[in-house]
């Protein structure tokens, strides 16, 4: 029990369900299954949103919106792709939308002469390496960034990435190649 600190109270009969069963149970309105689905994919959504540049102060809201979208459109999930691939697709679209909103807000702040808000720092992310990586990722175009994050951080295969981003596998490889090259170049520049 000692290793259980900071985890939620376990459900007495919570069995590990396969994604397909979980989806079926969720569709049937089983709240335990919904919670199970959330617990399984919340860390993934957080990690993916962070890597796609959603700032710390917006991550909770982003995760909330993504999961509400997942739960509300679960009935449209046909099961042709993996559940994780489908969630990645929703999360990627949401992160891009947030990025667009953020840019518009920055522009508005410039025109309204507002003071820039202080940059929030996630206390769990004190590492310099990950902060530098975020800075380098921020300079990549959205398409290359998504592919690089899905491959290198999320560990998806090129085929799965092609399903998430909706492009041919060859394009995934090409974007990945360019993204890696740009990242290495940026890292070397940063070090020097």
């Amino acid at each position, binding site marked *: 029990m000692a290793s259980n600190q*900071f985890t939620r109270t376990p459900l007495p009969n919570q069995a590990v369900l396969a994604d397909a069963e979980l989806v079926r149970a969720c569709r049937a309105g089983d709240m335990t299954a919904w919670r199970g689905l959330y617990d399984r994919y*919340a860390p993934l959504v957080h990690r993916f949103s962070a890597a796609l540049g959603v700032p710390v102060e917006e991550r909770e809201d982003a995760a909330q919106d993504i999961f509400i979208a997942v739960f509300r459109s679960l009935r449209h999930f046909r099961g042709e792709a993996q559940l994780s691939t489908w969630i990645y697709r929703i999360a990627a679209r949401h992160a891009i939308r947030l990025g667009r909103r953020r840019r518009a807000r920055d522009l508005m702040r410039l025109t309204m002469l507002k*003071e820039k808000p202080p940059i929030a720092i996630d206390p769990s992310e004190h590492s310099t390496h990950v902060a530098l990586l975020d800075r380098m990722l921020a300079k990549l175009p959205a398409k290359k960034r998504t592919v690089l994050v899905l491959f290198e951080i999320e560990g998806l295969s090129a085929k799965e990435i092609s399903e998430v981003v909706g492009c041919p596998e060859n394009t995934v490889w090409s974007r990945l190649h360019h993204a890696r090259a740009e990242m290495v170049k940026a890292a070397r520049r940063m070090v020097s």
Partner: protein
Amino acid sequence: MKWLETPHDEGEHLLREGLEQARRRTGDEIMHRRVWGKVNDALARPKLRFSGRLALASAALVLLFAGGLFGFPRLAAYVASPDTTVATAPEVPASPAPPATSARTAPAFAEPQSATAEQAALLETERVPGHVVRTRGGERARVALGGGAEAELAENSVITWDRQRRPSIEQGNARLSVPRQPPGWRFSLTAGPYVVTVVGTKFEVHVANRTVGIGVTEGVVEVWRGGRSTRLVAGDSWTGPLYPDEARAASFAPSVRPRLHAPPLAKPAASAKAAPSASRGPQNARAALQSGDTGKAVEILTRTAQGSGPAAENAAYELGRIARYHLNRPRQAVALWDKYRIRFPSGLLRTEADLSIVDTLSSLGDVRAALTEAQAFLLRHPSSERRADVQKLVERLRATESAAGQR
């Protein structure tokens, strides 16, 4: 071979480390719980169907049309009027050097009844550094500050814009109304040596007699000077010295705030450090627990729980968990979760606290108390995803109770 498996230079090494750490960035459990609480709430609310949306859109259109019909003739008449100032009140002059601004004026705050009745028109100013708006005796002005914020200047008041284009109350009284700012945005203004930051609120600033006074009507206001701050909530008021020397010497110490009605704050240096340490509290407590220092974790969490906001709520709940799982004191754990429930009756971890109490009491063999709590849980959380499990537990406890009664 995997990319960056053997880094060739410092840059590749940096990249590899960064990627490695980004893979471990999964967020903390407390945050996930908070998000689940919000998601659960949102899911409990029925989604508006298409017909509902259509009805709302139609209502909005009708309102817009009606507003146009009503407002346009008034606006046209206002624009066509040769003199847009109120005839009974004199014009508000600007300071001599910077560009002048005239304002529609009305009586000062001293006459609240007539002030409400004769609300002055909103004055759109240039909001450039050095621009000044000044009211004389018996005058009042409403000045737009950008982003929907506005200041209502009482008589003999002066507002300027500093180099950072922030509004600055130089003299007199200003009643400010700042609409809720978008996430991550803050509105700030200065008064003497202090910077006042708000997210969305109504408050009043008073600069006179060598003092700066702030009274909050709605929301939360932070008053900053250097790296030190004080936080005021609705109903609080605060006074500080106007001149930098006095302000430096007195700082935020309570002794120079004879009219301080806000809850007494810690020394400024401590309060400035309080925010980051509160947000780091759970992380530090977790690190202490992992290193086996339960006492330190309890100390950190107790300190965090004394504050306010989500960090305090989480800490209050976690104290119960430590008592149960680390200190093996289940009764104390129940008491701590009970304390949590009293303090945060609608907290995001309320369900967890209720369940933890049921679970602990049942493991203690206190059938009667566990049954009472479990039944209360079913009544309090009718749509909880744990309902089925608690229902089963209730049946089991009832069976145990009746078996004990028969014996």
